[in-house]
């Protein structure tokens, strides 16, 4: 199949997913026992993959400045701890983030396209993307119009992703499917493949504003779609579960899913991200615990 395949290529993918089986497989992978050095490696890897996120109405320059500091420098006295992958903010806060992170290697991701519902006219959503890129966003996290998708207007979904991808220019595009609203795994797989056919650089589970957000089974189904898409087209697409990932145990389970579904090639911040806000401190706490053998109080980890 050609990389420039269009929506009609959807038919060449097997779309059926069995929910019971997918959940069982995810649970089995989450049962991997990760200990000692492999746990330390996993923690560092997970930190380097975090999209440290703040998406609130009350976000301000001060808040974003502090979060950027945390992103570049998660903890004192641990030179081996990497910086996170990116900061994820609303478009109005891109400039502050960009300025603060300058030269750090931490990327700036911005949600756009009428986040989180996507219920605005396409033109306005495209303008928002262009503006965000102009402000300096390295990555755009868009939402699909779930209403159109659920109505069966798959062409619409394909075309909107394609248009937004074009509007992104050089910025990387992450396509949020909002799997909590798509509900079935059949829908999740179908939406994943449509997004990838339309040019997504990443596919992403959720906005974090709808429950359930990221789950292991839904992520597994999306990872399998990424693998099948790669096998069919040769194009590598990244994955970002977001929302509800709070503990080190969760994060490591996601890494196991990636490793055993897609392989080590995907175990890089370039191809796998974890959208989270509180996860970072739990990873740091577990990191210190692995090094010292002791759990430290939450007071020793900064809240920014």
């Amino acid at each position, binding site marked *: 199949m050609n990389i420039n395949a269009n929506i009609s290529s959807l038919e060449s993918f097997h779309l059926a997913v*069995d929910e019971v089986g997918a959940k069982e497989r995810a649970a089995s992978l989450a049962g991997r026992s990760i200990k000692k050095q492999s746990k330390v490696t996993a923690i560092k890897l997970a930190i380097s993959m975090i999209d440290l996120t703040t998406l609130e109405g009350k976000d301000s320059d001060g808040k974003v400045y502090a979060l950027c500091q945390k992103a570049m420098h998660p903890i004192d006295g641990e030179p081996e701890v990497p910086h996170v992958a990116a900061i994820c903010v609303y478009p109005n806060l891109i400039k502050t983030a960009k300025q603060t992170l300058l030269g750090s290697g931490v990327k700036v991701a911005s949600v756009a396209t009428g986040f989180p519902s996507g219920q605005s006219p396409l033109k306005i959503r495209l303008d928002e993307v262009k503006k965000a890129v102009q402000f300096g966003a390295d990555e755009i996290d868009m939402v699909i119009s779930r209403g159109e998708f659920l109505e069966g207007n798959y062409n619409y979904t394909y075309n909107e992703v394609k248009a937004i991808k074009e509007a992104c220019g050089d910025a990387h595009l992450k396509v949020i499917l909002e799997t909590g609203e798509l509900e079935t795994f059949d829908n999740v797989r179908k939406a994943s493949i449509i997004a990838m056919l339309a040019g997504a650089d990443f596919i992403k589970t959720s906005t974090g504003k709808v429950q359930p957000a990221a789950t292991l089974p839904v992520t597994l189904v999306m990872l399998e779609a990424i693998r099948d898409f790669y096998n069919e087209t040769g194009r590598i697409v990244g994955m970002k579960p977001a929302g509800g990932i709070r503990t080190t145990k969760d994060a490591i389970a996601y890494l196991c899913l990636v490793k055993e579904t897609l392989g080590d090639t995907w175990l890089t911040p370039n191809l796998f991200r974890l959208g989270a806000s509180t996860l970072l401190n739990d990873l740091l706490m577990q990191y210190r615990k692995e090094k010292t053998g002791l759990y430290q109080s939450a007071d020793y980890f900064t809240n920014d």
Partner: protein
Amino acid sequence: MTFREKPGASNRPSSNGEVKIVSGRSKPVWEYAPSTEAKDHISLKNRYDLFVGGKWVKAKKYFATINPANEKKIAEVASASKEDVNRAVLAADKAYKNVWSKLSGKERAKYIFRIARIMQEKARELAVIETMDGGKPIKESKGVDVPLAIAHFFYYAGWADKLQYAFPGKKFSPIGVVGQIIPWNFPLLMAAWKIAPALACGNTVVIKSAETTPLTLYKLAEIIQEAELPYGVVNILSGAGDTGSYIVNHPKVKKIAFTGSTEVGKIILRSIAGTDKKVTLELGGKAANIIFEDAPIDQAIEGIINGIYFNQGHVCCAGSRLFVQESVKSLVVKKLKQRLKTLRVGDPLDKNTDVGAINSKMQLNKIAELVQSGIDEGCTIYQPECVLPDKGFWFRPTFFTNTAQSNRIAQDEIFGPVLSVLMFRTPKEAIEKANNTPYGLSAGIWTDKGSKIFKMVSEIKAGIIWSNTYNKFNPASPFGGFKESGFGREGGVHGLKEYLQV
């Protein structure tokens, strides 16, 4: 990792192109460190005597049981002679007449519940010993063998005082002394399948473990002692085939329950012909796992893996014949190859091990011989290049393509991690081929269409059929075969009937 791909002697071309290897880099970014289950909490004796009449009784001869993952001796166990078997049967007969048959169902239930609860307390210990003695991954003994064994005791304990509801309006009574012979693939679980319903129905038991896996049964004997089960109600022996034949031929044994090979099943039937002994046999299988083109493919792949590589394929209901609809055959084979690369083969006590050690040298030789026959007959073999430990008995997860019904690997029960991939074009052809075997224990059907599932289920001759899943067990669900896979059912209400005169 790459694949070893050996075309067979006839040099038929492989039907599939090269697999794209996703993780092609030489050094993995992140490896799982060994995560070995602790052994310090288990207690094992150096030598186990026979458990007869509630006491440990010395035997004349002993034999070693080894850990198939490192070939080290774990303990010595007694080999029960004809006199020992006689003593055990007499103890069971005495317990039956004097105690167990006189107890009310409610009282019997109390004992069975007690066994189940003590097993729960010792679940970890039982799991570790099961893995050491048999080679199966700790993940499986902890997650499947032990909890299911416990569930069987709980389930049948619940039936003990409710038998009149299982057979309303009918008169029934226990049979007496039952002789039970179990295999090495699921030692504790098979013991639970047999002991629990026998006790619930008021029978007493003489049970023999398999030669290579006697230890968890003796741990069960300790649990039975702790539960203060009346002396002689359960007698546990170890030994080889001749010990089994003494049980089968003992005149006071009124019923035989056997799980094992079809070959031995036939010998048992011959030797009890003309007697009034009741018998249930759960024998071999060569199950068809059928994948339609509209199946959820990724889950079907998991079903194939679970069907044939679970417990190293030492499963009588293993899905050893894979029937794939021709239109999706290359996709399924490609995905199967990719999936096989991620199977972790090695130390059974490592919590991340997916495929453990082959149970015995003898079994390893048998698997190797059958696999060689596949190669000789021109089938194409696929094995992942996983590193196997130096010591112990190991066999790579294997599958064959370019196979036909007429190949020996597609007919004989291999009882190892070896799958034959066959194809079909229409549902009718799938049914025909699935039924084209002397066995009839189990089958799997994978399709998104409910109506197709019902049609297939009604026409496939197998005792257990799973749809869109595989190897699912529950004490309430009857298990047993058609044709040369045996007769009689274990589990559920059906399982009660086998231990009563109704």
